């Protein structure tokens, strides 16, 4: 799990922080460990034009959040929903469309760690909430 790419993405600063003129702010919590995330989305014409997050968490959750944001900026809401769907399939060990996920597939072995899936999914669940 802890390969170089994951470690690098866990330390990434690029997507950490607040977006002052965000159009959507969503908070997520991981009840098992107390980790929290605040996700800022700037959506224009059904398209995510910018995204950032604040919060603390383990390397897996931070890498996952950074990879998520990298993969949703400049995508339409519909494209992001397809992305989320494929991420969930990957975590459940089901067939998924690799071409949609890009570098996120580096975290595919998360399906073998039931206790870490919550860490991995914290950002994704929060993103999904923001569309409800």
């Amino acid at each position: 799990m802890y390969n170089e790419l994951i470690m690098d993405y866990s330390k990434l600063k690029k997507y950490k922080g607040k977006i002052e003129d965000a159009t959507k702010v969503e908070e997520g919590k991981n009840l098992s460990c107390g980790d929290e995330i605040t996700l800022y989305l700037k959506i224009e014409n059904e398209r995510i034009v910018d995204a950032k997050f604040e919060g603390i968490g383990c390397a897996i959750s931070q890498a996952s959040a950074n990879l998520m944001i990298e993969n949703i900026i400049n995508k339409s809401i519909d494209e992001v929903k397809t992305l989320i769907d494929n991420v969930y399939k990957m975590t459940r060990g089901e067939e998924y469309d690799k071409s949609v996920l890009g570098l996120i597939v580096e975290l595919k072995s998360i399906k073998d760690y039931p206790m870490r899936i919550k860490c991995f999914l914290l950002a994704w669940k929060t993103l999904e909430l923001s569309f409800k």
Partner: protein
Amino acid sequence: MLSKNILNDFPVLSRTIKGNRIVYLDSAASTLKPKPVIDKLSKFYLENYANVHRAVHTLASESTQMLEFSRKNYANFLNASEHEIIFTSGTTMSINLIVESLVRSKILNKDDIVLTTLVEHHANFVPWVRLSKLHGFRVEFVEPSLRFGTLAIEDFLKKDINPKVVAITGHSNVTGQLIDIEKIRNIFPNSILIVDGAQLIPHQRIDVKSLDIDFLCFSVHKMLGPSGIGVLYGKSQYLETLEPFLYGGEMIDKVGVEDVTFNVLPYKFEAGTPNIGGIVGANYALEYLKNIGFDEAKKHILDLTKYAIEKFRNIENVEVYGPLDESHCGILSFNIDGIHPHDVAHLLDEKFGVAVRSGHHCAQPLMNVLKSQSRLSQFPNSTCRASFYIYNSYEDIDILIEGIKKIKEWFDV
């Protein structure tokens, strides 16, 4: 070290995880199960099992006798009477039972005060907080004043109150602190004293009479026995008057359309078919521990704790929570600055075969206390927790320490 070599009783310890032998340091969550206990329980299921207290046939008689023998042994173990031993599903159920029954019986009333601490795990915290909202009693909290969540006896004196109930752990599941129950009792001679013994009983004989404990709760899965079975000791003067928490079969005497009457103790509090195998297995676990000796087990666990605390002192940027003296027993919670506990726990398992727990340990109020004193660059609202039991060794701790050092190198902290 223990005088007996018991490692053969725990075959799982010879397993390897990705090439490393298992180092099991998660006994505070649940202990491993010894083969002699499993073998006896297997024999019971294969040769004796039937439902209890109802039928007259041979298997029912044997099962009933074995279940009641377990009750008798736990009563002797605690210096209680057999009718004061109630089998529940565990500590959480026991505490919920007490709180709800005290309220239903109007022993705990609106505006009464319950005193507990910020060190409690959720089982002895949430029922009080939640039911105080529904029933109007008041909950006061003792705040630990010593290092990282360590309670001082003086902390209990700061509260100028006369609590109806004092509900306290005997041994913190996070800081590893042993609490002096005798002193607490002396401070509150007239309160109903409830002791959460979940972490205490696995290594300490408690005499409920001499300590004047009114209720004591613990779970058998933390003392080598099956999960889903717990012991609730209650002073008969309370049990006689308390309204039961669960209604149904076995706890009943006469049932009519107007009202019902209840069975005698302890059956009044044991509705439904009990966890028969769990109760029988609980006795086998107790016998196994008695055979080792509780004093010897405790000394071994204290020796390991002292050794671990010394080793941790030599690692930079690591915070160890709880006391640093001999009141710290068997449970060592820590954080490495800059690395999340989940990452530490995951890597300890994957690279070194070391099983530790990470998270808030069902003690969120205590996490806030630790956070207030922490010097970490960012407190993660959780900790890593290594916990030791009779099957652990100094070598296990050495492997843990080496693992922590390597993980620090990988994360460059």
